[in-house]
């Protein structure tokens, strides 16, 4: 299955000229910027930019572009995308989920087509299917996550390595932490 970090790693390491990272709020955007700085290929410069003009002279840097006006930047990038065709390392454009940038992108078919398959919405990939995961947990342990945790806290579950890891899983899947 796809996972957020794997998809971001692929995005940062694929020689696509432009990629898209969809974030849900500014705190998450900052976290994703840090994550991408760590995911960047070794020896590659990582550059934070807010305009296309800042990004353009750096075709060999991983550019993390966080424009203040996302809609205007999408339009500008659509008109200027040929100038970025020879990038060796992607320019990653950050757009807010449900924001103006994504709305404008739907009216820029050329740019949207370049981006197809190079768009990552980490939060969506991070969200697990709770019901399916709980079913798998029950199949594996014979207990619901809550029942497992109750048994663990009562000292009824031996602390094998696997059981310890299952206990953390139960905490993720069980009630409010």
């Amino acid at each position: 299955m796809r996972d957020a970090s794997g998809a971001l790693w692929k995005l940062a390491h694929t020689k696509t000229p432009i990629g898209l990272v969809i974030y849900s709020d500014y705190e998450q955007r900052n976290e994703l910027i840090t994550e991408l700085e760590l995911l960047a290929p070794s020896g590659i410069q990582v550059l934070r930019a807010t305009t296309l003009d800042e990004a353009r002279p750096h075709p060999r840097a991983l550019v993390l572009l966080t424009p203040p006006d996302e809609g205007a930047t999408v339009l500008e990038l659509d008109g200027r995308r040929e100038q970025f065709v020879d990038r060796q390392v992607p320019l990653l454009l950050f757009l807010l989920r449900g924001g103006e940038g994504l709305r404008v992108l739907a009216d820029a078919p050329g740019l949207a087509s370049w981006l197809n398959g190079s768009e990552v919405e980490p939060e969506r990939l991070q969200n697990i299917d709770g019901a399916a995961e709980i079913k798998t947990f029950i199949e594996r342990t014979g207990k619901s996550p809550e029942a497992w945790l109750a048994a663990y806290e009562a000292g009824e579950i031996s602390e094998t390595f696997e059981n310890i890891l299952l206990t953390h899983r139960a905490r993720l899947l069980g009630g409010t932490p």
Partner: protein
Amino acid sequence: MREKGTWEARDTAIRKGFEELGAKRLHHGNELRVRLKMLADRGFCAGQAVGWLTQQNRDGRASAFVFSANADGQAGGHPALQLNNLKSLDEGALLTVVVVVDQRTTRVVSFSIGIQGKGRATQVPWYARVDFTDARAGQGPCGHPLLHCHVGQNPDATGEPEVRVPHAWMKPAEVLDWLLATVDPSLEP
């Protein structure tokens, strides 16, 4: 007189430490990734390791940082990261990481970080693992401190006595630092 209160005070301090970390909204995933990148850059693990530590969220309530199925090892029935070139452990040692946090506050709820392998010279199995859970389990706070460490030969051993060495308060990334420096002094932070 048996001073249970001292042990309870230790657990309370540990809980408080994690609450304070939560208030700082520390991103434990990225803290761990900093260490993984260093390991990858220095040839101790695969270059993809940073991309293998992934986040899983459930219903906006809890998040876990774990290795994805892409990772190149397996331990305890879960994905793990293979470590090589360590001074004290033979090739193919395994790093396991699970950190569960409250998604809203980022407070650590529980974690286990461990390394297992064979001594490079002795070929004797070895493992060390630090476990934390903020809920009391089993025995009292002395026999089962909230933050404790297991060291031995078999991570699945459940023989008598069950040993849980109380551990000083550390955040997950610092636990990883400690484990790495234990298996290779060149990894001392």
